[in-house]
């Protein structure tokens, strides 16, 4: 259970744009153990998808990784050749993309698109073996076998999303990344899909990286959680501990702006202001301009951001470590 599967250390990445560098990922570190589910939460644009893409080494052409390492089962992924990466992708790590609605090629049948991946990673399998396995997966995510013979546009959003999950499972990965897998779905379906993912994860003993802007969902789904703000992780720890004693003012703001999951009546408070532009280098604590209770230290631009430990496996950005 506590075996390290994915280890990300000091990962920094920026996009090269005409307006300058967009620092989308700054000095991000976390580990995911096997069988564990890890949540990444933060406002839209804080760099969650950038982290996810970098884990698969599928980041856009204009991105530059300046520092850090990504180790999957002890094997470094950064700098691996495209051919070696091909063997890792889907076989060890698969992903359900944000906006997975468009993840299917419109002119190829669903079943064939799944089999295509299986042929790549299990060349010895017969066609029938693959079909059997797909049917099994479909059953697991609540889809009918006949979906295999359908084209993407014949399916509803929820069905497509379930099929995407089946696709992500098709080559027995050790870890699945789910990047806002339910954002485009209506609420009832969202709930079903979440349950499906959780069920499958437990059943197969997979690791999961669940990415969302909705901290309530993350609470339901994960054992461990990292809160991201403007490209950096500002608080990370066991989900329970972070929820019970959030330390960073951003985490607290996030929790406050969500209807309480435990049903306590609390006044909803939304956060004022906008996240900072990632183009300009940010001095000091990136959250201080929006912080409801900034201390004098926070505004001090010479303070570098960095995590310090405040509890068992619970870390928070220096700046807020003293906050009450």
């Amino acid at each position: 259970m506590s075996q390290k599967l994915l280890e990300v250390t000091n990962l920094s990445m920026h996009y090269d744009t005409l307006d300058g560098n967009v620092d989308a990922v700054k000095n991000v570190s976390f580990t995911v153990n096997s069988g564990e589910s890890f949540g990444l939460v933060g406002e839209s644009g804080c760099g969650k998808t950038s982290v996810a893409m970098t884990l698969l080494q599928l980041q856009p052409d204009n991105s530059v990784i300046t520092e850090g390492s990504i180790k999957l089962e002890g094997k470094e992924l950064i700098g691996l050749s495209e051919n070696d990466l091909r063997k890792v992708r889907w076989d060890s790590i698969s992903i359900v993309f944000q906006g997975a609605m468009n993840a299917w090629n419109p002119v190829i049948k669903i079943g064939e698109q799944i089999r295509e991946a299986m042929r790549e990673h299990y060349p010895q399998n017969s066609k029938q073996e693959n079909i059997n396995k797909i049917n099994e997966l479909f059953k697991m995510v609540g889809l009918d076998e006949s979906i295999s013979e359908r084209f993407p546009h014949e399916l509803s959003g929820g069905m497509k999303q379930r099929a995407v999950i089946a696709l992500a499972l098709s080559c027995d990965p050790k870890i699945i990344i789910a990047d806002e897998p339910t954002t485009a779905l209506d609420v009832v379906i969202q709930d079903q899909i979440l349950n499906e993912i959780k069920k499958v994860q437990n059943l197969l003993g997979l690791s999961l990286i669940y990415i969302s802007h909705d901290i309530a969902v993350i609470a339901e789904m994960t054992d461990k959680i990292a809160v991201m703000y403007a490209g950096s992780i500002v608080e990370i720890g066991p989900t329970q501990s972070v929820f019970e004693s959030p330390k960073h003012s951003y985490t607290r703001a996030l929790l406050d702006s969500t209807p309480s999951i435990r049903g306590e009546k609390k006044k909803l408070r939304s956060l004022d202001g906008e996240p900072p532009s990632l183009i300009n280098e940010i001095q000091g604590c990136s959250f201080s301009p929006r912080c409801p209770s900034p201390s004098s230290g926070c505004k001090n631009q010479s303070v570098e951001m960095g995590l310090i430990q405040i509890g068992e496996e619970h870390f928070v950005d220096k700046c807020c470590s003293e906050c009450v």
Partner: protein
Amino acid sequence: MLIYTVKRFFEMVIVFFLFLVISYLLFNAIPGNAFSSLLLNPLLPPEAYQKTIEAFGLDKPLYERVQLYIINFFKGDFGYSYTYYPRTPIDLIAERLPRTLMLFSIVNVIAFYTGFLVGKILAWRRGSKSETWITIGSVFSYTVFYPWFALMMLWFFGYKMDWFPLGKFLVPEKWYDSPYTSDEIFYTLILFVTVSSFLLFLVFIFTRNIESLQNRRNVRFLGLLSLFALAAMYWSNGEAALKRFYAADIAFHMILPTFTVTLVAFAGTALLTRTTMMEVLKDDYILTARAKGLSQKRIRDRHAARTALLPVVTSFIFTIITIIDGSVLTESIFSWPGMGQLILEAVVQEDIPLAMASFSFIGILALIAHFIADISYAFLDPRIRIKAEN
């Protein structure tokens, strides 16, 4: 799919009727009597004049004439060509159409196939040096003033280098004691090209499902080799061996026009494919394909190029529609005696029956091409297939 096809077919028939009526009315609108030039042709005997008047009901009111024309059309009776009296338009078209179709089908198939291949590689290698240069070259040949370009090709390869004949269909001196007419030889050629492209097509279709790329390539190579062997056997035995000399003469005359038109047509396809493919490469499912760990080639050919094929097919079909109109220029420059020249002649000489028959054929061809476009589109894109079924 069947219902869709039938529906489309009936629509096509209706449109064709409208086309016939409208084109008749347009010719009818020519100032004076549309057939007055008939009188001026000294070669035309009076009985032909009388026959035409009767056949087309020229002394009857307009609506009767239209009726008569349509009835005659379906009987295949267009009267006589004024310029080629006593040959009929049908007879002339039957002689000229195959020449045009042969030349331009070959051109279009080569141009679209290579254009598509090049276009997809250009999009894939975006930003590389070779991509830049080939793209610039394609833009040049796509935008070049075609008549000038064709004349330059003719001047350079035909006159300056003297590698190819300066146009025409054959060298008459070689044919003085020929036991065959040029048409006989040409039909043999057409048959040969049709059969061999069909066989080639079969080779590709049947090897499509060979999973290993290496094996597929080898099997296809073997297939090509045996096709070549078959072709060689065909031309060295029996009657074909006697026809070989004349067939080669015609084929030789086809090379320069084929090459010239291909260069121009190819560029358009390559640029079109490049643009669509670059759009497709931005789609999410390309990212999925990469995440799945598929090979570059598979992503390019199976996921990107397949979707980028749709607009290319459309443009291919629309090119087929314009083959005959488009052939006017090429055939004039290379003195290729096909439909293009025939139409030009008919119009310049006011040979009304011939012109009308020719335009009707263009219409039929255009409709058939549209029909094929719709059907093959539905075949290639399942989204349209579904819509079509409902």
